Every structure is written in C-alpha cells, then in structure tokens.
C-alpha cells in the first residue's frame, strides 16, 4: 500500500508543478476592427491623482464617483488606508464599497475584464509593479484600451489615461492573481456574472441592513434571472427589514405560488405573520415549511419552537 501511495503522491506533485507552469491568462484582448471605437474609453470616470501611498483611496474614489457616490479620496482614505501598512488592504477596499451602499463585485476570471470594460464598467486592479520578491503593490483603474497600439489605458498614480502594453499589464496584474474589483450601483449588473456570484456580492449589504440598496440589486438580478429563488427571498427579507410587513406578506405569498415547495418562503412568511400578531397563521405557515423539508429544515424547526414560545 505504501509504495503505491508514494507513486501516487509523486504523480500528483509532478502534475501540479506542470500545470502551475503552464498557466494561461485567457484574456482575449480586443482587436482594432472590433465593434467598439478604437481607442475605446469609458465615459464619465473622473481622475483623482493619488497622494503618496494612497493609490487605494484614489482608485476607489474614482470608481465610487463613476457609480454615483460623491466621495473624495480623503474621505475614502479614512475607510481604507492603514497607515501602519502604508497601503490599503483588499478586504478594506471591498468593505468600503459596501459601506458606501454599492455592490463590490470581484472578477471571476481575468478574461471578464474585457466584457466589463466593454460594458462601460471601470475595474480597479491590483498590480505588482515590482519584482515578486520585492513587490510594489499598486491599485489602478482600467478605463479603456487602444487596440491598435496594443495597450490598456489606466488611471494610475498621478497619470490619467496612462497606456500600458497588454503583455506588461498581464504580467503585473497576474501577480495579484488577477484581482479586479468593480463598484456597481444596484441598478447595474456585471456584464459577465454568474447568478450565484452576483447574489453573493449583494447579500452582505442585506446583512448590513442596507435594505433599499440590496432590494434594488435583487430586483436587478430578477430581471436577468427571473427564476432566482435567493433573489426572491432577498427582496422579501429587505421589505421585512424596512418594516413593510404588508408588502412583505404579499411578496412571500406571490413567491410561494411561483416556487411551490420551497420551505424558506413559508418560514419567512411565518415571521411576517407573527409580527402582525397573527400567531395561528404563523404556526400554520412554519408547519408547511417543515413539510417542505430540504437542507434548511432545521432552521424551520427552530422557527417553530420560537413561535410556540412567543
């Protein structure tokens, strides 16, 4: 058994190494004769020159302003800049987007950059402008390209519309594992997004109690994915959070007709009914949830217990 497993281990390690070296970015850079004008630039994205070490606040301020939030780099710096680190942590950037009532959406793949820029969405990228062992991390905003010259166009540092060769950009961007952040208003969906990824980007806003923004984003999601149960749940939860109990009840009842057998809808309806003082109806609803079963059954049973004790 031991010899076989050593062999297996060796094969596995070897193949991991091989696959590691073979990595391709898969980015399909646009051609000059494509359907977009060339050079192509995203409209209405302001430029803020950065202060020393403050590329993060500058980049984020640009994207926020494009998305309709009037925030200066100084204001953003308070939310993202860590003086001891002389920089802005990626997690802080994402959190700051949410604190400003916007959806923070990370690119799923480097190739998505092209689709998003083509759709007019600026993308904040993290580059390593130095060496792998002496990194110089830098946030910049991709605002367009010049396909004829083979260059990406960035708002970077103190330079607006800074051109960078495709290959150079790929190399510096690769070192952050192609980290790309979009700052989206709730009315605009990413061009290239899976349903689950977009909803996962919205649900933290719901968790933070940003009901209006989250609800608007869930409605946008339903336009593209009309059969999305999580988006439907989300709207109901936000209505409840806003205190609109009657609207929430109507919403959940409609949803139950559209999605029969989904216990979560019965469970959440039960909560709305309970808040309206309709305890017996709430008990009925949660019992129906339990009958539906599913992976959330334990939650429904907990709800039943709590309603009984109410």
């Amino acid at each position, binding site marked *: 058994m031991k010899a*076989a497993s050593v062999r297996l281990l060796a*094969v596995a390690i070897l193949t991991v190494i*091989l696959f590691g070296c073979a990595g391709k970015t898969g980015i399909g850079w646009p051609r000059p004769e494509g359907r977009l004008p060339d050079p192509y630039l995203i409209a209405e994205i302001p430029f803020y020159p950065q202060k020393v070490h403050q590329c993060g606040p500058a980049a984020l301020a640009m994207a926020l302003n494009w998305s309709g939030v009037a925030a200066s780099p100084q204001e953003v710096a308070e939310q993202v800049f*860590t003086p001891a680190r002389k920089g802005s942590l990626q*997690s802080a950037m994402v959190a700051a987007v949410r604190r400003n009532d916007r959806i923070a959406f990370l690119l799923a793949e480097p190739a998505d950059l092209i689709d998003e820029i083509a759709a007019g969405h600026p993308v904040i990228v993290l580059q390593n402008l130095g060496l792998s062992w002496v990194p110089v991390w830098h946030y910049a905003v991709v605002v367009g390209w010049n396909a004829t010259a083979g260059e990406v166009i960035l708002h970077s540092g103190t330079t607006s519309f800074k051109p960078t060769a495709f290959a150079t950009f790929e190399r510096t961007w690769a070192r952050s594992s192609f980290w790309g952040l979009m700052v989206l208003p709730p009315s605009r969906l990413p061009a290239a997004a899976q349903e689950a990824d977009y909803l996962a980007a919205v*649900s933290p806003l719901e968790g933070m*109690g940003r009901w209006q923004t989250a609800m608007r984003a869930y409605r946008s999601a339903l336009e593209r994915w009309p059969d999305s149960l999580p988006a439907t*749940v989300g709207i109901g939860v936000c209505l409840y959070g806003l205190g609109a109990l009657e609207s929430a009840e109507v919403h959940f009842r409609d949803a139950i007709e559209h999605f029969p057998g989904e216990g979560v809808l019965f469970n959440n309806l039960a*909560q709305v009914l*309970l808040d309206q003082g309709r305890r017996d109806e709430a008990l009925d609803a949660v019992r129906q949830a339990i009958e539906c079963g599913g992976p959330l059954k334990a939650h429904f049973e907990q709800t039943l217990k709590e309603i009984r004790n109410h």
Partner: protein
Amino acid sequence: MRKVRKALKPVSLLMAIFMLVLCTPCQTVLARMIPTETVLDAARVDAARTQVSTFLARQDVVDVLVSQGIDPAEATARIAGLSDAEVVRLADRIEQLPAGGDTFATIVIASIVIFVILLITDIMGFTDIFPFVKKKRI
C-alpha cells in the same frame, strides 16, 4: 530581535482585531427570518454534492480509482462523510481542473482528485495513507 518582537506584540494584536472588524460583516439580527446568505450557502452545498457525485460517476475517474485499488463505492461513502465546507472545497477543486480531453490529461486529472480525496479522508481519520498528515483527535 526579541525586543522588537515584544514591542510589536500589542501592535500585531491590534492589527488582528482591526482586520477582524474590517472583515466581519455586521449581521443585522432578523430573529427567525432566514436571510439570503443562508439560502445561497445551502444552494452551494447542494450543487457541490451533485458536482462531486457526478465526477465520481465518470467512467474515466472510476477507471483510475479501480487502477489505484480503491473501491468506487468506498470513495462515495467517504465523500458522504465530509462536512459541508469540505465538500464545497472539494467541488471547487474539481471545477478548477481543465476539462477532460486526451487520455493523459484525464489520468492526470483523476490522480489529482484522488490525491485530494485521500488527503481529506486521511485528515478525517478514515484512512492512514500519508504519514505527514496529523490525525484529527476526536
């Protein structure tokens, strides 16, 4: 060096707390209402279990399992014992693999997955293949 380390201890503790505050989303309490995040998580786990069982049902994967002396039914049983988080991680790993094509790629793919499966089950204490894995103490 020790003096520097000692001086930095409160700083690093502060940084850790700071980062925790930054990274932990503030959950608004909604009592018994099930939030969207929970629905999404349940859906992801469901999808992950389906992905993993589909993968294990592939003929090329079964062939490799058998060639390594592993009973495919046994592998399925061990996967069933994984926690939700572990299954999702395994499904993510399967997703990242290049799509099956030529024979060499398929063998390579299956080897990686088996390695991952055996590694997880070793950590769980169901198998004892890799000497470098510290056994989980129940």
